[in-house]
């Protein structure tokens, strides 16, 4: 990626977004002193354009747009290694969650559409079935992402081993789960929750 020159001024350092990230994640980005331990232990750092410590540095400088434009946050595996090892108790995994939530809400200009699609289908499945319907999740993902043949070789083996259930048992109490989803939507509409 071509490096853009970073200009810091009162206009470019937008901290109101950063405050939102801090509120959502319950952690302070100002505590980070850039030791780099999070990135050193991150199994996904090699796939990211901004490794975890740089994500925090960019937040400290109010340069959050650079983070949302990239795919780093969508390549976090939520393995919690960073949060576990941080000597200053910066809960980086929660910061990643908060960044993804804000990017998700804004349908942000992310390059990582596959991970977003997988998340979306997963949540839709919960709302429709109450539990995960793995067969449908994989099939719909392949259709919607245009990779019709992805993992095709795995299918027959998984079905003969009983690992892919073609028929799925819906949860019996579906009205209950629908209520949770709609209550949360209403709370957000009324500004009672982020």
């Amino acid at each position, binding site marked *: 990626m071509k490096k853009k020159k970073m200009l810091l001024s009162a206009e470019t350092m937008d901290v109101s977004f950063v405050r939102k990230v801090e509120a959502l994640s319950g952690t302070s980005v100002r505590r980070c002193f850039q030791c780099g331990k999070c990135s050193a232990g991150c199994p996904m750092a090699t796939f990211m354009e901004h490794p975890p410590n740089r994500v925090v540095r960019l937040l400290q400088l109010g340069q959050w747009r650079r983070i949302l434009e990239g795919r780093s946050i969508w390549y976090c*595996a939520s393995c919690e290694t960073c949060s576990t090892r941080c000597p200053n108790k910066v809960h980086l995994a929660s910061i990643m969650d908060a960044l993804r939530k804000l990017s998700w809400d804004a349908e942000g200009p992310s390059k990582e559409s596959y991970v977003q699609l997988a998340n979306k289908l997963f949540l839709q499945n919960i709302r429709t079935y109450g539990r995960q319907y793995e067969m449908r999740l994989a099939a719909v993902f392949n259709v919607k992402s245009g990779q019709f043949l992805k993992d095709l070789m795995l299918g027959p083996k998984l079905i003969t081993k009983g690992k892919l259930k073609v028929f799925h048992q819906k949860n019996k109490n579906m009205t209950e*789960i629908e209520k949770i989803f709609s*209550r949360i939507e209403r709370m957000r509409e009324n500004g009672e929750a982020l």
Partner: protein
Amino acid sequence: MTPKNILKYAYYPGCSLHASAGEYDLSTRELFKKLNIGLTEVPDWFCCGATPAHNVDELLSLSLCAKNLELAEQVDGDLAVACAACFSRLKTTQHVLGESDVKRKQVEKAIDAPVPLNGNVKHLLDILARDLGLERLEQAVTKPLAGLKVACYYGCLLTRPNDVPNLDCVEAPTIMEDVLKAVGAETVAWSHRLECCGANFTLSRPGVVVQLSHAILDSAKSAGADCIMVACPLCHGNLDIRQKEIEGVYSTQYAMPVFYITQLVGLAAGLGADKLGLDALIVNPMPLLKQKQLL
């Protein structure tokens, strides 16, 4: 002496155990029956939301888990969880809601009920190693796993982050090794037991999973392990189901069976292959088990 308390639990299997990890569910139920530990499935449990929910919608993730904690209250006993990811989400929910009144109130509004924060959520490992105890586990062994060299794979969410799962030390846990030694197996020292396998990227970015899981298989093999043991259906999927694909990409051969913890402990407790779902494993474990005279 009064008879020892009979252990009983509410059981939360999680979605995978009803589909791609059916053998984990089967072997758990059979092993616990054998050990006289009661398991009653939580009625009408929901998906915990796993990684996708907390990835983009923390409130939804907390609410789904809180609902499950509430449902679990209907059944006597602590909550027993088999999947490392469900375990992590349920524990994290208790932890987060215990610390933040604001979030707790939001969640209570979303599920329209109070959230029980004091119920114990336990992973199967915890129940085997601590509630039942290593001594009683040792007594239940009828066929010690002598000569079987096992790489115990913890993955990410069993122990992390600090203070939340509270299962064992975050950087140097030994609980899996302790359980396996109690049933007579050998455990190997290896480098990748806490590294991530790529988890749920298996759907969206399988290339990532291939790269990370290859490192894990490679490390276990070079440490001299005969097989790997896991306590999470996602780790299992990545290491077992994708093993052939990984071998193809890296032009190598592992043929490394990947067992669930309940399968190996069950084997030592005298359960047969059919009761442990061994035929559902993709990498065939039979040659190894026959060679070690365990079947």
